[in-house]
C-alpha cells in the first residue's frame, strides 16, 4: 500500500458550463512513489483535471465514498484530501508539491534568476537571495543547462528567451525547492523534440533520485519513450467514466 504516493479509490469532478455539466469519475488509480508516471488519454478526457486534483490546484469535492489518499512518507499515515482543512492546503502545496505548467507562466517583468528562486523564497522566506541563487545555479549545472548561465542571460527578462529556454527555466523553477511530488502538465507541447528529450532526461533522473514525477503527456510524444530508455509507469485515462448532463 505504502509504495504508492497517491491512492484514488474514487473521485468525481464536475465541470459546469451554462446548463450542461460534465462529471468525470476517476476510479482505482494508484500512483507509485519515486517514479516517473505518465498520465495519458485522449484530448478532454481529464488528464489535467486529475493532476490538478492530486496537486490540490483545484477544489476537491468528495462525496461519501470519494477520497484521495496522499502518502507523503511511507512510514507516516496518509493525508486524506476529504478531511484537509482549507488553511492546510496551502501548506501541503508549499511543503510537498512542485508544478511545471503547459504554459510556462514565467513573470516577464522579473529577471530569470528572480523567477527561478521564487519557490525557494516562498518555502524559506528568510533565506538569503544569494544562497537561493547558488542553489539555482547548481541545479542548472546539474541539469546540463550551462548555456543559460552565459551572457548574463539569467539577469534579463524571460520575455527575451526562446520557447525552449523558457521551458527549461520553468523546469528549474519547479525543481529548485526539491518537491516530493512534481506535477508536469504537457511540458513538450511548444518545444522541439530534442529539447523535450533534454527535459525528459532531467525529470527521469529526478525520479530516480527519489522525486515522484507525474507528467501529463500526449500520444504525439510517444516517440520519446520508444527506445525504452525510460522506465515509466503509465496511467491511461481513456477508460474513465464520463457523465454528461
Amino acid at each position, binding site marked *: 500500500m505504502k509504495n504508492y504516493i497517491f491512492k484514488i479509490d474514487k473521485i468525481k469532478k464536475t465541470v459546469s458550463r451554462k446548463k450542461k455539466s460534465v462529471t468525470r469519475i476517476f476510479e482505482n488509480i494508484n500512483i507509485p512513489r519515486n517514479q516517473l508516471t505518465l498520465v495519458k488519454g485522449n484530448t478532454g478526457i481529464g488528464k489535467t483535471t486529475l493532476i*490538478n486534483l492530486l*496537486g490540490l*490546484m*483545484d*477544489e476537491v469535492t468528495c462525496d461519501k465514498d470519494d477520497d484521495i489518499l496522499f502518502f507523503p512518507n511511507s512510514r507516516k499515515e496518509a493525508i486524506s484530501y476529504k478531511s484537509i482543512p482549507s488553511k492546510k492546503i*496551502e*501548506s*501541503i*502545496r*508549499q*511543503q510537498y*508539491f*512542485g*508544478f511545471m*505548467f503547459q*504554459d510556462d*507562466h514565467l*513573470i*516577464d*517583468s*522579473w*529577471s530569470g534568476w*528572480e523567477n527561478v528562486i*521564487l*519557490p525557494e*523564497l*516562498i*518555502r524559506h*522566506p*528568510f*533565506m538569503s*537571495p544569494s544562497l537561493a541563487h547558488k542553489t539555482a545555479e547548481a541545479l542548472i549545472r546539474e541539469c546540463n543547462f550551462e548555456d543559460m548561465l552565459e551572457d548574463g542571460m539569467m539577469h*534579463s*527578462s524571460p*520575455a*527575451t528567451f526562446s520557447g525552449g529556454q523558457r521551458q527549461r527555466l520553468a523546469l528549474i523553477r519547479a525543481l529548485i*525547492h526539491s518537491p516530493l511530488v512534481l506535477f508536469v502538465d504537457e511540458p513538450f507541447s511548444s518545444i522541439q523534440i530534442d529539447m523535450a528529450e533534454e527535459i525528459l532526461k532531467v525529470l527521469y533522473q529526478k525520479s530516480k533520485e527519489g522525486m515522484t514525477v507525474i507528467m501529463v503527456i500526449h500520444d504525439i510524444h510517444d516517440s520519446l519513450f520508444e527506445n525504452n530508455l525510460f522506465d515509466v509507469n503509465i496511467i491511461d485515462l481513456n477508460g474513465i467514466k464520463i457523465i454528461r448532463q
Partner: protein
Amino acid sequence: MKLISFFAKQVTNRDFNPKRVQKTCLQYLFQCKLHIYGSRIILFLLCLFAFISLGIYQGTQMYLKQMEEDPFSSAITLQVGMHYSYNKLSIIKERFRFNKETQDIEINPKSDAIPIINEILPYNENYLFFIDKNCKLLLGEEFNVVSFKLDCFNNNNWLKKYLSSGSFFSDYDNDNTSDSKIIVSKMLYQKMGFTDLKKIPNNPIFFSKADLVDERKGDMKSPLTDMEKKIFVHNLDLINISDRLPFDSIISEQMYYLLFNYESKYYKPCKTFELFYIYFNGQKIEQKILKDWANKYFGYSHDLVPLDNGVKIRLKQTDHEMAKRCNIIKWFQELSNTYKFLTLDLSKSDEPNQIPDDIDYSYSFLFLNSEPVIIDNIEIISRKLKRTLGCFIDDSQPITLKKLRKNSKMLKKLSIIVVSSILISLLFYIFMTFSLFIQTRIHMIGMMKSMGAKSRSIKWIYIYESLKLISPSIIIASIIAVAIQENNYLLMTDIVYLFDYLSWFICVMIILLTTCLGAWLAGRHVVSRSPYELLSYHI
C-alpha cells in the same frame, strides 16, 4: 507574516520597477511606469486636499476659539457723538435685559431675562507727539493712546486678565491708587528703557500733534524755531523717546490727565481758554485798537471787558481754534510788536484742572454677553442701544462673531463632507487601481499560490504595495501642508489655516487604513480562488 519580510519586498520591488524589455525608454515609461507616477500624483492631490481642508477647518476653529475668548470680539463700540459718563453707562448695563420669549430687549425687566452687557469700558483716544532732546527736531511719529479709568475693570478679572495678556501693568509715581497705573505693552516698557517697575521718566514732554500741525501748516520736518521752542517747550528738559513708544499704547485715566491737564508738571501747549487778560502796564492804548484786534481773530464771539489797567477777554465758543493757547499767544505777538508795553496773562484761567469724579468719555466698549441668543439678536440690540444713547454704534465685531459661529458650523459640516469624500475617493481609487492591477497579475498570483504562497501573504503584498504607492504622496502633501502654514501662503486670502500635528497624524492614519482597506478588498476576491482557476483565467 514571515513572507512579508523579504518575499514581499522582492515582489513589490519588481512591480514598481519591472525588468525592462521594451525597446525604447518612452515605451517603457508608458507601459510600466506611467500608471505608478499617475497614481502617485492623483493620491498626492487627494492627500493635499484632505490636509488643506483639515487645516482650514482647524484654523477656523482656532480663530473662533480666540474670538470666543476675546471679550472685544463681542463688544459694541460707542463712538464720538456725545460724551458718556461711566455712571450713565453703568445704569444702562444694569437695566438692559434680553427676553428670550419675546425676543426683544426689556428695560427694567423681570429676573428671568438675560443680561445683555457684561461690562463697560469707557475710554478716550489721544495722540502723543514728541520732540528731540535738543529741542531742534520735531519727531515725525504720532502715537495713538487710549486712556480709560482702571476702576472700570478692577473687579473684573476676566477683562483684567485679557488686558494683562497683551499689555503690562506698572506702578506709576509710587502712587498706590488704582488710577495711577500705566498700562503699556511689555515691549514698549522695555523700549522705553525701564527695568525697574517703580522707575518713571522724570519729565517727559508730551503735546498734541494737532497743535504743531496747526502752527506749522503741515511742515513737520524742519527744526523748531526759537518761537516754537518758546511756545511749545518752555525750556523744560526733554527726553528723546521718539523710538520708544509704539502705536496703540494704553494709558490710565490718571496718566492721561497728567499728560494733558497738569500744566504744573507737564506742559500742554494748546489748551483752550475761556478767558485771558491783557495788561497795559501803566501805559495807555485806545480801546478801539484792542477791539479791532479781538474782532479780527475772535470774531464777535467774545466779550471785551475793560479793567483799570487792562482788559479781560472772555471767549464764548471755547471749542474753536481761536480759543487755543498757541493761537492766542501768536496773535497777541502781532499786537505786542506794535505796542511793546502790553503783556498777556493766561494764568488766571490756566489753573491745573482737578480730575472730576465722573469723567466724560468720547468712546466706550460695551462687552456683550456672548451667549448665542444675545449675539444672534445683535441687530435688535444695536437698534435699541442706538435709540437709547443717540450715538453712532459700531457693532461689526459681534456681527463678525455671529457670522463666524454660523460659518464655523457650516464649515464643520463642509469639512466632514470634503474629507469623507476624499477618503471615499481614495478608497475607490485604490480599490479600482488594485483591482485592475491584480487582474494583470492574476497568472502570477495563481503561480505563486501553486508554489504554496499563502492567500493572506499575497493580500499583504498588495497592502504593502498600496502603502508604498501612497507613502511618497503623503510625505509630499504633508511637506506642502506644513509649508503653507510656515510661509503663510494663505495670508493674502481670508482663509485661516492651521496645521495641527495631532489632526494630521489622525488623518494620515485614516488615509493609510483606507488605503490598506482598498488594497485588501481588491486582493481578497482574487486570492480566494484556486490556483488552477487563476492560471486558466483569460481576459
